[in-house]
């Protein structure tokens, strides 16, 4: 059973970075440098956001012979959540959605 707890400060940082340009696909390492996170923290956050339907993921098109890179951006639900987070401010944490939201 997933807990309905508020996001961590690091998760909020990732959400804000993604919300700054919500239409743009981002690489994982770009988020690491932008939010000043350790890589060991980033991926668990991304996994958690994706599990809750706040994140869209995709694979880089045509990577050639190299391994494809994963791309991330906020889903519509994620954009709404990031907007709610910005409106509430940091003093009143907004709980993460409990279950994965439906598409669109």
């Amino acid at each position, binding site marked *: 059973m997933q807990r309905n707890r508020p996001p961590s400060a690091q998760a909020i940082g990732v959400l804000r970075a993604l919300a700054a340009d919500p239409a743009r696909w981002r690489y*994982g*390492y770009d988020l*690491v440098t932008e939010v000043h996170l350790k890589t060991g923290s980033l*991926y668990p956050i991304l996994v958690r956001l994706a599990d809750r339907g706040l994140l869209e993921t995709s694979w880089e098109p045509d*990577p050639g012979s190299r*391994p*494809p890179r994963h791309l991330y951006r906020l889903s519509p639900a994620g954009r709404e959540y990031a907007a709610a987070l910005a409106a509430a401010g940091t003093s009143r944490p907004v709980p993460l959605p409990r279950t994965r939201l439906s598409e669109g």
Partner: protein
Amino acid sequence: MAKQLVLMMCPVGIAVALLWRYARTVPAAPGVRDDVPVRLLRWAVGLLSAGRAEWGQAMLGELDHLEGRGQRWRFAVGCAGAALLLPPWGRAAAAVWAMAALAAVAADLDASLVVRYRLGAGDWVFGVIMLVFVASFALAAATLLRRPGVVVPGLAGGLLVALAWLAMRGFTFYGAIAPMTAPFTPLVAMVAVPALVGVVGTLRAGTAAAGRRIARLAAISAGLALYLYGVIAVVFLGATGPPADPGSTVGYIVSDRLSGNMIANLVAIPLVTATIGWAAAAATARLRPRLAAEVASVPVTASGPGTGLDPVPAPPEAVSAVGAPSWPRTAWLLLLCAAVAAAVFLAAVSGLRG
């Protein structure tokens, strides 16, 4: 003498296994990175559950695009740590917690004995070494327990090995610290039981790789359980019991028992069990060739944006196969062969003289 010979042959067996593995590894294709960070991360993402395999590939894909040795190392180590901890763990979680608790209790009791009997600096050094061993065992168990099909046969094998050793020691605390006359030859616990674990584990799991992991988990769990039993024996007996040595102080006897317990149960028994079980698993797979094919531990997914995540076979660099060795590899192989030959020669000479 047979016990000493078996112990001496274990490092030789490990060297042979490494040699065999090294000889069968193909160098990475040109243009494909295959440095240590990639190997570390590839190993770690292999521990992820099937539902998280996509994230493992995301980490590997990102690492491939990073330049700079330090940057690549930092990324790989961070991601490997995340992969080690990333849920879901399923049934393995309970087993990992149980192993960690076992290790913590044993280490705690050992340290309490050092304090209680006011042992010297040498015992504190031994205590630190013990902590390193116990922590390594717990970490190794945590990674092995996450592999599919390993938990039950591995822990059952460990229980069997531990019971064999305890039976040999008469199921007594005295037997744990001063081995009593065994009702059967020690080779049963040293060779027959680990070999049985390796064979049955391989047949049950269906692959040689899983059989070897089962043997390793059995070695680790048996070592930890026997170590805990030995420490509890010292807690109860202190300096009393056989062998009688009126010239020794209480501190000396306790210290001797603690260090003996550590060497026997955290070094010798796991080493022998893992090596014999590993060899038995490899032999079983060789005798039944359909078991030899190893399943790639990292399910690879590669998809373009907007498409499904269709699994595709592991990349060529992730799969071992026979290939033409390059010159530095040949040199390494020759060196390893020389080392193995020297070790076999020394073991044979020692055995003949003993």
